[in-house]
């Protein structure tokens, strides 16, 4: 399938390089803004070539030290555990759905799909998790609500399984007398690796970027805050101030003016993204095909 035509290779590489530039430049701007001197940033605006550099924003982050690092730890913990459970549960759920003669297949697919369109809203969901299941102010508050399983992921994996893994394979395996779990483990998982890694990436990013669970389910126990919660709190405080500046009594604005400025937000955004930038390329090798289909078939 790989086309070795030289002109074609050059052309697609050029196109993709342009894409890379379009992606990288804004990142560069983000990084530059985070190391631009605060006053220069406000007075002169954002630029790729700041007049004056300053590491003030990062010093600020380091000063609040423990908090940031704890939030980091929390984010990593939640992301790793959540992603593993997510991928596991999704794969287990999607594989039967991909079998074309599973009784009730359409109904169950609809059952999954329906949740993508309709939801009861935040309050009922909050009542469910907080009041009945008691996840509030615990790690489970970050882990369980909404993110543990995504209907979208189930449907995507199902689609992949049903097209990329031939039916005959299952039948062959069954005639061999392989148990369903064994088929799942030794055929479906290896063959589904590309999509599972992809879904894992999405799920991981969803956990990494999530701040809503922290907002609603972590109230008193702010030690559980993730890095996104810290960032989001700063941003929402700033917006509140911008919207209410003229209404608020001045002492309130005094308290709010301690909220870090744009440069620090940029720095925190960068710090929040950094680990992913490092980990991401390491994941790349899994995107390519797991094992050759032919091998199994033969």
């Amino acid at each position, binding site marked *: 399938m790989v086309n070795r035509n030289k002109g074609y290779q050059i052309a697609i590489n050029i196109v993709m390089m342009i894409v890379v530039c379009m992606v990288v430049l804004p990142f560069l701007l983000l990084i530059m803004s985070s190391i631009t001197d605060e006053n220069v940033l*406000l007075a002169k605006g954002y630029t790729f070539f700041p007049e004056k550099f300053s590491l003030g924003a990062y010093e600020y982050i380091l000063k609040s030290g423990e908090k940031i690092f704890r939030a980091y730890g929390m984010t990593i913990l939640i992301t790793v555990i959540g992603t593993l459970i997510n991928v596991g549960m999704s794969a287990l759920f999607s594989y039967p759905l991909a079998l074309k003669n599973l009784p009730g297949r359409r109904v169950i697919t609809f059952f999954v799909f329906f949740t993508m369109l309709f939801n009861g809203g935040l309050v009922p969901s909050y009542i469910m998790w907080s009041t009945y299941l008691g996840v509030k102010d615990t790690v489970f508050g970050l882990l369980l609500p909404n993110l543990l399983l995504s209907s979208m992921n189930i449907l995507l994996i199902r689609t992949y399984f049903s097209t990329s893994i031939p039916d005959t394979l299952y039948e062959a395996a069954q005639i061999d007398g392989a148990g369903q779990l064994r088929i799942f483990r030794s055929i479906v998982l290896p063959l589904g690796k590309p999509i599972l890694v992809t879904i894992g990436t999405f799920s991981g990013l969803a956990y990494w970027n999530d701040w809503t669970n922290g907002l609603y389910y972590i109230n008193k126990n702010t030690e559980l805050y993730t890095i996104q919660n810290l960032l989001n709190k700063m941003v929402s405080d700033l917006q509140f101030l*911008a919207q209410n500046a003229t209404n608020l009594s001045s002492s309130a604005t005094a308290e709010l003016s301690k909220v870090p*400025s744009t440069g620090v937000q940029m720095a925190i955004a960068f710090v929040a993204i950094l680990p992913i930038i490092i980990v991401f390329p390491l994941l790349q090798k899994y995107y390519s095909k797991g094992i050759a289909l032919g091998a199994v078939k033969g």
Partner: protein
Amino acid sequence: MKKSKLLKIVSVLLVLSLFVSVLAACGDTTAPASTPANDTSSTAADSTPVESEPTDTGTDEEPYKITMAIIGNEQPNQDKVWQAVNDLMLEEINMTFEPILLSFGDYQEQLRMMLSAGDELDVLPIFYDQASSYINSGQIVDLADYIYDYGQDILNYMGEDIATSGAVNGFIYGIPANKESNTRSGIVMRKDIIDEIGVDVSTLKSPRDLTAVFEQAKAAHPEMDMISGSRVITTEIVDPLFDWFGVLMDYGQDTTVTNYFESKEYKDRADLTKEWYDAGYVKLDAATTTETNANLVKAGSLFSYMAPIKPGYLIQENINCGTEMVTAYLGDLDGGYQESLWTSSVNFFDWGIAQQSKDKVKAMEFLNYAYNSPEWNNLMNFGIEGEDYVPVEGSDVLIDYPEGKGIGDAYHMNMGWMYPNQMIGKIWNGNPEDLWDQYTEFNKGAVLSKAFGFIYDSSSVATELTALNSVRTEFMASIETGSVPDVDQAIKDFNDKLYAAGLQKVIDLKQEQLDAWLAAQ
């Protein structure tokens, strides 16, 4: 065929949901075991009306736990301070204390969730614009049932007028925090530039007087923006009747509800702003920037901004701006001004009791205590004496950081305006010793709006208000920063859209309720 399929789908869903409701029910019964102390069935789903029969207070009963939502940033030494508050309350009123600290940006969302789900909560802060929604959805308690029996000290201290002024149709939703209520707008300018161009600040009376100042300052510092803010001119000359949709003109002395945005006063203000914008005085991005004015001044790109000013204001602002500032009170565009007070300025911030509070009488007794205990207010605001603050030598009321501590090292919530009663507490160093007297004077100097104490019941126009709010955000910032190309056209569009969204209905409603209210006074 199709029907049967649908039937099948529905039946499967039903069976599944039945199955899980059983599961959930199981979960429900086992949950309390894990959290023994503070579980209840106080959920929105099955809230039982506990309020009617308050339990009688015995002498050596279990202390009641007050859960109180407060707004602010996390502080150093916080746990210890709150433990001290807890100990104080246990000793003085036999209650324990469980604060829930919410941040400015998120409190609204988080409180809404807690109120809706029936989380444990007794006392909560209520900003004036939330009251109506809380009342309409039954999330808070009418204090009229409690304040006269259990809040006597509040009534005595604040006076019944003020204490019960946070009321809609007789439903008292909260007690106002005791603070300076009369905030008058003024201009805050960089002192070095004012000195440089030689302006006598005392001659500035009206926003119009600023044009000349800006002209000189801009000439001296062409790289600087003269003024910024999402509303450039902030002087208020009307009683906004809470939401600006139908106001009382003439500082609330005229009892006819009118549309402010159609008035000559509004047009004059917009014209002046536009004049400044066209002359290059207003920051181009004023309508969209999220940077605070103080930060912009600090960065050297802004000369001045308008703000509500009160005694002691400059001390704070000098720190925020990193340079010395000067202020001048400004009146309306004609140079006139009348100190005035309206319901929303007094009731900007109130304390109320949540519907799910397990013992509303206790909650009221707690408020009664909090409004009258200097120790409680001091602890909440400034922390523990000796650790977070020390008295300033030679003064009874002034306090300051202890030796070797500063911002960020000690508990310093410094949100006196939010706590029930800062005006019986200590005063931070740098302010005048008679700050509280100045505040009282400040409040007394104002003329009350004719509609003072009136809050309209908006429940029947909720639909119109959503559309109106949307129209207001569309036009207000762009008109009031001068960024619109044509002021007359923009104001006309603004008003057309307001009326299309049902402004007249809101105005009529307000007028009707106001007349009834005035007649009853």
